[in-house]
């Protein structure tokens, strides 16, 4: 077990614990804050995998934007101010459990199926340049497709939200 693995272990534990707390926390704002920790540890994992660009983009987008947006939304609508808890109903819990378990199983199956016991060696640092090349040369079509999809979602959201 080398240093990298130890670091990964720590990050994985932190991330896993935080993820667990996200779903078990009885306070929705706390849940969002645990999500920050979880996402940050994922960014740490990216760093370990020598993909600093992805790691920092993860921080910018997920921590800096997505979670902020979530928090923003929560606070704008029904955040219990202070220490008050907002307990979920049993139905919601069951639903959440089903969805969570489903996702977990799906990933386990997919990843297990794809890699199995194979040990993937660290391939050294990925230069940002290489990342850009692969994204805009090799995978430019999927990339564009995803962006068009996102754009459509964006416009759809605006259309839905506008009342006039």
């Amino acid at each position: 077990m080398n240093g990298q693995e130890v670091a990964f272990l720590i990050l994985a534990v932190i991330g896993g614990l935080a993820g667990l707390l996200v779903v078990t926390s009885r306070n929705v704002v706390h849940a969002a804050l645990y999500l920050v920790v979880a996402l940050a540890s994922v960014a740490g994992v990216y760093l370990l995998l020598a993909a600093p660009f992805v790691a920092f983009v993860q921080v910018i987008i997920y921590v800096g934007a997505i979670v902020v947006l979530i928090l923003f939304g929560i606070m704008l609508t029904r955040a219990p101010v202070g220490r008050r808890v907002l307990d979920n109903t049993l139905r919601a819990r069951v639903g959440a459990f089903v969805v969570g378990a489903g996702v977990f199983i799906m990933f386990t199956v997919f990843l297990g199926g794809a890699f199995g016991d194979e040990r993937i060696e660290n391939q050294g640092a990925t230069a940002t340049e290489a990342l850009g090349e692969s994204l805009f040369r090799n995978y430019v079509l999927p990339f564009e497709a995803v962006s068009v999809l996102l754009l459509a979602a964006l416009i759809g959201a605006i259309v839905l939200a506008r009342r006039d």
Partner: protein
Amino acid sequence: MATELGQQGGAAFQAADGTGVGIIVRDKADRELHTQDMTLNVGPQHPATHGVLRVLVTLDGEMIEDAQPVIGYMHRSFEKLAEYRDYRQIIALVNRHDWVSSICNELGVALVVERQMDLEVPERATWIRMLMAEWTRVLNHLMFVGSYPLELGAITPMFYAFREREEIQALMEWITGGRLHLTYCRVGGLKQDLPRGAIQMSRDLVPRMRERLKEYEDLVLGNEIFAARTKGIGVLPADVACSYGVSGALLQAAGVPEDSRKTEPYLFYDQVEFDVPTGRNGDSYDRYATLLARIRESLRIIEQVNERIPPGPVNVKLPKVVRAPQGHAYVRTEAPLGQLSYYMVSHNEKTPWRFKMRTPSFNNVSSLPYLLKGTLLPDMIAVMGSMFFIVGDIDR
């Protein structure tokens, strides 16, 4: 309380333990999206209300649905107090309802008593009263010229205004000995004559103030952010203004050239040249611009008065105990904030039998619900700041 709200399906905002601030949450079923009104107390202790005015705002998001000014936190029963004070004491008292325009307040009292007593005030005293009243007007307007941008986030004009005020204040202090509550007018004249050199100092101050006014125009009035914050905000049309009894800069900004100094001249205002500035749109921007223009006009009056103070006494000889004869009198003056009137009923005693004040701020603020309806919460500050009120003048 919080639990109650929780049972209702959760409140948008909940107070800590339900203490202090009251929250009224109403569901709105008739909307497509489920929104809740929130009632927010702005004040009585809030930086934007300069003093203890409380505005009960009903919010839909940041949109104001309803705003009710709640007054009376500073009520000091001036009118009742005045019934138990002799005229000199009333003069000392009324200094304090609008605490930044003391001379203009006490002038009204002196005038109303003089009217009732049918007293001829020496010319010199009248001119000096005008001089002091106009400087007070400048002082008062400078206060708002500084504080309004402060409410919109510009800190600097406040300091400039106070720099200017300090210079005028020095003149006032030299003349009267006081800084805020000057107590300079007396029934029948003034407390004492000017100290030697005061007129010259007043002469010197006028061009300096004019020069400084230019700075406000550059720093505040010409600023695009300021314009964006104030143009079209809090539009008070002339007819609404009139129906609320709004007066002063607010009314003039709405385009009504009403000014007691013009329409019903007292002192020697009919002998000096000045204009009544008016605005076009009646919005916050116009109100601020009118305020600046009013300072210019006041400086114009001061310039003329400086040269016209005749020699002579500043007082008439009165008996030791001043008694206004039986009857009643009404005097209407243009205080810096608007029309200030005093109505006095006298039963030939040393105190008035009834002393009614019509203070400008009270009427001006009464138009707040009209102005605030449908504006955004941040605009509330922009509107309230441009109402140019003094809480003491509302509550009395």
